[in-house]
């Protein structure tokens, strides 16, 4: 994920300082890794360097002085361009699960047992995410983020089910290669 574009997106609502941007990022993307303060400030400095953001003064609110930033017109254009770009659909995923199934066959292991265990781990994570998104008071950002993860885990599971059903053929193919 592009931190600079996410920060530009958060700045689109108006000037803000680094601490506030970090807090809003973590609220808005609850399942993402929280942003480190250092990363926020480094990214803001790069945005200023590239003419995409500029300093909008300072405030202190009685505490230490904090620099506020705002997006420039150039920054707004850059953000709009990024938001329009289609993310490339990954046609062949370099998938660890697939690699482990093949390696397991090559090494005379038990790919079926591995798939069952992997399935159990996926289901356990799906139960956690379902509990998170159906908890009373869950906000929409949390629900959408859990939905995204659930749908991807679900796709993995469907692939694992089909693969388990095809293991005999796959084993013959790998063995004869």
């Amino acid at each position: 994920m592009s931190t600079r574009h996410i920060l530009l997106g958060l700045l689109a609502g108006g000037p803000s300082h680094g601490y506030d941007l970090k807090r809003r990022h973590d609220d808005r993307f609850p399942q993402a890794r929280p942003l480190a303060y250092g990363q926020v400030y480094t990214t803001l400095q790069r945005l200023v360097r590239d003419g995409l953001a500029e300093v909008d003064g300072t405030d202190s609110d009685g505490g230490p002085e904090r620099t506020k930033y705002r997006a420039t017109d150039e920054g707004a254009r850059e953000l709009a361009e990024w938001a329009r770009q289609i993310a490339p659909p990954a046609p062949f995923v370099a998938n660890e699960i697939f690699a482990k199934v093949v390696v397991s066959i090559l090494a005379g292991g038990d790919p079926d047992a591995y798939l069952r265990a992997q399935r159990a781990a996926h289901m356990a994570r799906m139960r956690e995410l379902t509990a998170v998104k159906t908890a009373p008071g869950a906000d929409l950002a949390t629900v959408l983020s859990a939905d995204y993860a659930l749908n991807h885990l679900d796709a993995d599971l469907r692939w694992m089910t089909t693969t388990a059903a095809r293991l005999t053929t796959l084993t013959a193919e790998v063995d004869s290669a």
Partner: protein
Amino acid sequence: MSSKGDTSVPLLEGRDLGKAYGRAHGRTEALRGASLRLDAGEILAVTGTSGSGKSTLLHCLAGIVRPDTGAVSYRGERLDQLPEKRLSELRRTEFGVVFQFGQLIPELTALDNVALPLLLAGVSRAQAHTRAGEWLERFGVRGQSELRPGEMSGGQAQRTALARALVTGPKAVFADEPTGALDSLASEQVMTALVHTARESGTAILLVTHDTQVAAYADRELRMADGAVAGAEVTA
């Protein structure tokens, strides 16, 4: 939650269940030695591909069909050996059942559909309607009380069917693909309502589904393949 080696009496237990349909030619063995236990208040998902025997397993456990071999026990009592009259009474008072299509009576309003099991159990009409209204409220379809099934969305009809399944305060609800005919948002609403209500009332649910996102609402999952339980996954 259940775990292997648990010696307490389960709410419901099936042991080595076998069931075949048809005659000698074209005979289908739907169940081949399937076993499971369901504890009080537990939500258990039974998953598997089409034809894996999961619906037949549900029917045997709910006392809808009798297994050819094996034993079904409800609170330690052999369900598969009960006379039909006692079995039917047990199904009416202790069990609730929901299928893919709610089986609501098309001529009756949502309120009358939900009140029906109470009326059959001898509850007065006024009291049955009050309780039915409360259950429609819990499933978020109180506003549809006066609608007939054909006038409701699929999700509303299914939530009404769930209210009907739970209105008698059953100990166990058997749900066979309860969201099978719904889109993902309606499915989410139905499952959230079912799980929250079951947790509140301590009702156990046996949930048959081919959808892993629906199975993820359960406490644990049993996978079926070729009429038997393929992999038991025990979860905290």
